[in-house]
Structure formats: structure tokens, C-alpha cells
């Protein structure tokens, strides 16, 4: 039946089935997560008690916290920068319009492997390899980011207009010049947007890495939490929130500038 009614009926049926399936999946996942409205209802007073312990904040640790936040920021920045430097050529190798299909698929598969290792595990491996401190943190961030950045770059490269690549190459340009003047200019806005987004995420990731000794503010988070020194945790939280807000604004400006 190719009438409007027939097509519409089929579409509605499929839509309803998909919606029902999704709802069922959500319900199942809530059950497996032991979701309980009762537990949530009981939690109110406990939240209140926790937050009351944060006040008044213990400003004596401010200097320490700021310094380690700066270190966290630097770990995130260095890690992201290293990831970008390595992800650009890897992204080219994973782009099916730049290299042969078999190579692009193999590289994409390798990137998927990199992405699948949890960041904490990567950090632990680097800590055992190069010792404690900010270095393993920065390397872990870089390694973990490459998996996402390179894949995204490749996907962006693949959307480039092939006609423009042909036109630039037709002037007698070398392969490198065609990439530089034909491919990259088309992809810069999305590449930059995703890179700064990744950098924001990396700052938050780096904040946690201190938990395994890879530098940054994570060390102090776990120190104060385990020591029940919640007034100091309050200062930590405030500084982190401030930095994340600033980063958010900064990345917004960068994305607009590169449009």
C-alpha cells in the first residue's frame, strides 16, 4: 500500500514500537541501578548535613588550593596540546578521503581501542611507568584524548568538499599544500570547537587524576575528604567552580572568534 495512509500508518507503528522499546530499556536500567524514590526522599536531611559541614570555608588552604588548581589546569592544557599535535596527523590517517579505506578503518579501530580504556587505568599505568607527579597525569590526559580527538577530526575531514580539494590540488599544489589550503580551512571551526570542548573535559578529568597520584588538585580532594576536613573541601569546590565557569566563557569566545 503506497497511499499516504499506508505509509503514515507504518511510520506511526514503527515510531511507537521504538518509543516503547526505549521506555522499556529506561525502566530496566533504573531497576538494575536500584533506583528508589524512597531512598531519594530520605536523603534530604543527609544532604543538608553534608552541606552544613562545608560552612564556614577554611580559607587558610586557599593558597595551596589555587596553586594545585593551576597545576591541574596546566596538566589539562599540556595534555590537550600534546593530544592535538598527535591527533591531527592521526586524524588524517583515519580519514577515508585522504588515505586508502583499509588504512582509515584500521586507524579508526585502533583509536577505538584507545578510547575504551578508562582514564583512571591509563593514569595508573603511566604512574607506574614514569613515577608520581603531574607528568603521568598529563600523559594520561593526552593518550585518552587522542582516542576522541583523532576520531572526531577524521570525521570532520571526511565531510570536506571534495571539489575544493580537487580545485586546490589542480593548481599544482603538493599533497601537503592541498591539505593545508584545501582541507584544513574547511574544517577549522569544528576542529577548534571540539578541541576546546575536550580541553574543558580534560580539566575536570585532571582534577580527579590526583586521586591516583598523577598530580593536581585530586590529591587534596581525597586528602581532605578522607580526613573529614569538609571546610577545606568547600574551598576546593569553590575554586573549581570558578575555574570551570571561566573556562566556559573563554571557550565560548574562542569558538566565536574562529567561526
Amino acid at each position: 500500500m503506497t497511499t499516504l495512509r499506508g505509509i503514515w500508518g507504518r511510520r506511526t507503528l514503527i515510531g511507537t514500537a521504538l518509543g516503547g522499546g526505549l521506555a522499556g530499556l529506561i525502566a530496566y536500567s533504573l531497576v538494575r541501578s536500584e533506583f528508589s524514590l524512597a531512598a531519594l526522599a530520605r536523603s534530604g536531611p543527609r544532604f543538608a548535613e553534608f552541606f552544613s559541614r562545608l560552612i564556614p570555608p577554611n580559607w587558610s588552604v586557599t593558597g595551596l588550593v589555587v596553586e594545585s588548581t593551576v597545576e591541574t589546569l596546566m596538566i589539562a592544557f599540556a595534555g590537550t596540546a600534546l593530544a592535538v599535535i598527535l591527533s591531527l596527523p592521526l586524524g588524517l590517517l583515519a580519514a577515508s578521503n585522504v588515505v586508502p579505506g583499509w588504512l582509515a578503518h584500521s586507524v579508526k579501530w585502533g583509536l577505538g581501542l584507545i578510547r575504551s580504556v578508562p582514564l583512571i587505568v591509563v593514569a595508573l599505568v603511566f604512574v607506574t611507568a614514569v613515577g608520581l607527579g603531574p607528568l603521568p597525569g598529563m600523559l594520561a590526559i593526552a593518550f585518552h584524548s587522542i582516542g576522541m580527538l583523532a576520531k572526531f577530526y577524521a570525521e570532520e575531514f571526511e565531510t570536506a568538499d571534495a571539489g575544493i580539494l580537487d580545485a586546490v590540488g589542480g593548481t599544482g599544489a603538493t599533497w601537503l599544500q592541498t591539505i593545508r589550503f584545501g582541507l584544513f580551512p574547511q574544517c577549522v571551526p569544528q576542529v577548534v570547537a571540539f578541541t576546546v570542548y575536550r580541553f574543558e573535559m580534560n580539566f575536570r578529568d585532571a582534577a580527579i587524576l590526583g586521586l591516583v597520584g598523577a598530580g593536581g588538585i585530586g590529591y587534596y580532594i581525597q586528602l581532605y575528604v578522607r580526613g573529614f576536613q569538609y571546610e577545606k573541601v568547600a574551598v576546593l569546590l569553590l575554586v573549581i567552580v570558578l575555574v570551570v565557569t571561566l573556562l566556559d566563557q573563554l571557550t565560548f569566545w574562542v569558538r566565536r572568534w574562529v567561526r
Partner: protein
Amino acid sequence: MRKSRPSRENMDSSPEPAAAVVELAGVHVVFGRLCALDIECLELRAAERVFVLGRSGSGKTTLSRLIKGRLRPSTGRVRVLGEDPMAPQSASPRGFRRRVSMIDQEFHLVPRLTVADNVLAGCLGRVSSARSFFGWYPMAELMKAEAILREVELEGLVDRRVESLSGGQRQRAAIARALMQEAEVILADEPVSALDPELAEDALQLLVDCVRRRGVTLVVNLHQPALARRFASRIIGLSQGKIVYDGPPEGFTREAADFLYAGPDRPGRVVPIGQPGQAKLEGA
């Protein structure tokens, strides 16, 4: 400039034929079951302004792509500037690619980049990868680009992004990039399809003037016979991949134009006269 010396050859009544810039021999281009181009013999000479007319699908774009070296013929031989465009022997492939410039129908400028960036891309065939990577173009190239932009009247829009330009302005930017290449053969695939009639005439006039000044060969694919008659020094009519007219614009009459754009079952045939490759429309 070379001084022309009077000699017995120059005083002959028949002029020495210019060098053949493009030669096709026994060329067939087949896509699946469709024969897109079927040319027994075709020679384009230096400094000719060849306008190729024909319906959509008649083989005009296929011919351009053959000359540019983006396509290999299924059978036959293609020689451009003495080389096989898909496998140039003498200089590096990049040197050969630079000598033939193609202006696509969609222009294919980089939208996010400025007019200056796009036009300068035309000199990439002459500038090393390392220098161009950082934008360190030689001063000579920058001055060439300035001169060309003045020639196409875009000098006021140097800093504007291509995506903010009008159709006519983009057309001139595409021409400027092709001129920057300093190619010996300029191909243009339906360069004025997106322009209104007045702009189309201006654009073609500009292109033809620039080409005349440089003495290079021009091959333009077009839909408008009137424009071809006005600007061409030679018209080639393609129908279903075959040449059905090849001669001066004066000979391309209304009837010839009608035949070209009529259906495939319209009677008529190609009659060779004089040199091979020279054909005249007969019996429509």
C-alpha cells in the same frame, strides 16, 4: 619580446599553424554502458578561444576533465602540451598540473578563506610546501596577486571571505585564481551558468580579455550559443559525445544551434571538410 624578422615564410599567404596544445585521437570515454565521449580526432591550437556547446550530458564536462587529467579515456590518446595529462613524463606531475588550470562550474573556492587566500592558492604550484605552509609567499607572488586582483576588479574585496561575496564576485575570484596559476591552458566549465545575462556577458568579456593579454588557450563549456558566437574564435558543438560542429563562430548558424539542442532523433550528420577534425554541420 621577440622581434619578428621578415622572412619568406611570413610572407606566405597561408599562416604557419600554431602549435597543437591539445590533441585527442580515437578517444572513447565509457561509463558503464554509456558512451560519454566519442572523438575520432581533435586538435586545439595555442591561443585559440574554443567554446564548446552542447546539451547537458553531451560530453562537455567529460572533455574538460580529460584535458585537465582528472579522467582517463577508455580508449584512445590524449595529449596536452605534449604530455599525457594523467601521467606527465617530463617535469614533476605538479609542474604539469600547474600548466592547465580548470575553473569548475561551482568555482570551488574555499568559502571560509578570504579572496586573497583563495587567489594566492593559485601560486602553490610554484611555491615550496614549507614556505607556503606558514604563508611566507615570495614578494613577487604577492605583487602578481595584487595585479591580478586589479585586473578582475576585486582589489577592494581582498580581505572579504568568499562566502560573503555575490555570484559575480565569486566568479571573478575563481578567474583570478586560475590566472594566478599562469597556466598555458585555461578550462572553464559553464562559468556563467549561475549569473544573470548581463553579468554573464561581463564575466566572459573579462575572461576573454585576460586570456587575450596572456596569449593562452581558452576552452569554455557553455550553454548559450549567442555568447559563444560573440567571444569564441572557434566553436565545437557536441551532441551525445560526438562532435557535430567544429569551425568558426560565423559558421555556427541558428540552424546549427537548433540542431544541437534538439532531440537525439533529429536527422543530420557530420561531414568532414579539409583538415581532419574540421567538421561542418550538414542536413538538419
